[in-house]
């Protein structure tokens, strides 16, 4: 598929997955990929301290929008911005916009929001999603990437609109919930990309989450991102001693064992990962985008760039595999 077409499918992409699968990294890589296609991108963080900003070498995000990557440069990439949405900030802004600024400060400073949120759970989620909807409608960026809460909470988060329609039958919260639900279920406006690792438990949970989101929220699911696949290397089957002799070099004492064990390890892990990838394909009929494991465990802008390239290649391949 043409990446430009891929990113044009919906203005909002919600990235969701179980904790520890690299959801935030994938959100950042997606943003880089989209920016390279010339789309101005806004990354929205909702759970606080996800480390998203540090991937770009920035200070932690705040409610105020900041530039994470200015764009321009030789590849003519568009700008990437980021902000963190909190229910408190979203509420104050919402009330202010609706002529209720007098009550807003008191509601937040007294901590009353907690009580109200308890009275109708999902209010915090709807405040955030309502703000996202506003940004989406305003066309504040070509693409909005929402780094969703971790797995279990992601479902609750996205279900909040439906739940609130029942709990709060009139008033602004009700209409907010209605608007949010409309956005979530409009496949031309919003899609969810699920992220997993090629491992047993994360794959199981991803499959469950996928069906939940589709059946209960009615949201469109984009391709699944399988993160952390060890890249294959040709030549790992060779015997170290024979291979050294063939290249007219010698090995240090004990090195043959280390080389052999490391090669075995990679082959073995790749086989295990492959099994899980195939199982995922069998259990969930969604296209997959594969991202490589980054051996340099300190992710920064160069690694993000690498992942963005991998994503763009994988998106390109989506097209070919469908033909």
């Amino acid at each position: 598929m043409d990446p430009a077409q891929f990113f044009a499918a919906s203005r909002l992409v919600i990235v969701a997955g179980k904790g520890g699968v690299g959801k935030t990294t994938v959100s950042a890589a997606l943003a880089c990929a989209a920016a390279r296609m010339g789309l101005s991108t806004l990354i929205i963080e909702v759970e606080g301290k996800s480390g998203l900003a540090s991937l770009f070498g920035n200070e932690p995000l705040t409610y105020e929008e900041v530039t994470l990557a200015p764009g321009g440069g030789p590849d003519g990439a568009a700008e990437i911005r980021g902000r963190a949405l909190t229910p408190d900030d979203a509420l104050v802004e919402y009330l202010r916009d609706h002529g209720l600024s007098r009550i807003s400060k008191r509601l937040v400073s007294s901590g009353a929001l907690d009580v109200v949120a308890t009275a109708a759970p999902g209010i915090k989620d709807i405040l955030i999603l309502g703000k996202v909807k506003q940004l989406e409608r305003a066309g504040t960026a070509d693409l909005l990437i929402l780094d969703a809460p971790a797995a279990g909470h992601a479902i609750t988060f996205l279900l909040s609109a439906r739940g609130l329609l029942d709990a709060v039958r009139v008033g602004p919260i009700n209409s907010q919930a209605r608007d949010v639900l409309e956005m979530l279920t409009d496949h031309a406006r919003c899609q969810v990309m699920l992220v997993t690792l090629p491992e047993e438990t994360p794959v199981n949970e991803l499959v469950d989450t996928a069906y939940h989101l589709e059946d209960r929220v009615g949201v469109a699911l984009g391709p699944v991102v399988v993160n952390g696949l060890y890249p294959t290397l040709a030549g790992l089957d060779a015997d170290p001693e024979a291979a050294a002799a063939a290249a007219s070099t010698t090995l240090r004492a004990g090195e043959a064992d280390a080389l052999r064990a490391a090669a075995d390890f990679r082959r073995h892990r790749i086989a295990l990962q492959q099994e899980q990838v195939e199982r995922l394909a069998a259990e969930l009929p969604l296209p997959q985008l594969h991202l490589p494991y980054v051996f340099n465990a300190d992710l920064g802008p160069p690694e993000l760039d690498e992942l963005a390239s991998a994503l763009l290649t994988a998106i390109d391949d989506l097209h070919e595999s469908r033909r």
Partner: protein
Amino acid sequence: MNELDRLVREADIIVTAGSGGVGKTTTAAVLSLEGARAGRRAVVVTIDPAKRLADALGLEGLTNTPSKIEGPWPGELWAMMLDTKSTFDDLVVKHSADPAQAERILSNRFYKNISGALSGTQEYMAMEKLYELHSEGDFDLVVVDTPPTRHALDFLDAPRRLTRFLDHRLYRILMTPTRGLMKAANVAAQAFVRTLSKVVGAEVIDDAITFFTAFSGMEEGFKHRANTVFELLSSPSTAFVLVASPRRDTVEEADFFARRLSESGIAVRALIVNRMHPRFGEGLPEATRERARTLAGTDIGALYANLADFRLVAAREEEHLAGLTERVAPAPVVRVPLLRSDVHDLDGLAEVGTYLFDPAAA
């Protein structure tokens, strides 16, 4: 005998804390299994909604009362999945003056929301369950898993935080009109409530008022209990074990928990790091990478490139752990390698156990 060995043999309570996806639940199960193997009556309580412990223990589903797992050990092994809501229900019944009061609360919609969804309720109820299991005396060792969130240790602020909700100013604002006191002073408060009703709907506020009215009189019991639970948690017979993986972000989370515990005057007794990449030989990653470059295009070059990849990961993982290791010192750091497959049976738990309790043999 290492520190973990000592803990499963001697501690009354072990609490595991860490971020999601690091194998915390599995670790809790392994600790309880080892307790049973050491002849103790052990129970593991998980609150992980992913039901991974159920997988690990080969159970089809857990309930709010422990179920026994039969096996070839001298002690006993029990497991349960915390049902936050029914634990809260039990607590309401226990503290209410009469069955009618309990019933009024349990059937209130606002209460149903609190007991199921109020942030912090899960953590609070986990500790409540822990206290109950410990004090009823059926178990020598209670291992409790915490939710995979940054708020997992919020119960340490007990009782301030646990009862914060009940002490709430809004609670008083909502309550005063029904008490009919100081009417004049409440004009502002009532205006506030009216505006609030406009935003969230009057039904929501009505539900809340009904709840607080029904709950009236039970706050003291709750506060007292919260204090008792906190005392138990900070006693020397309770051990906090941190679980992490060697990735930078999860190490940062573990570090956050370590600081959080130390602020409450509680020491970390052990740090368990799961999912470590193996180390292949002693060479440095840079030198290995250089070898790979020199020999690029040959099979031996590929073999070196692969070795360099894993040496780099292993070195990075150790770098990530260095600061945390220092922070939790003198608590031992126990490393568990990436396993061949996910743990979903007792053999799998036993395999992890060999890394935790017998590192030399592993």
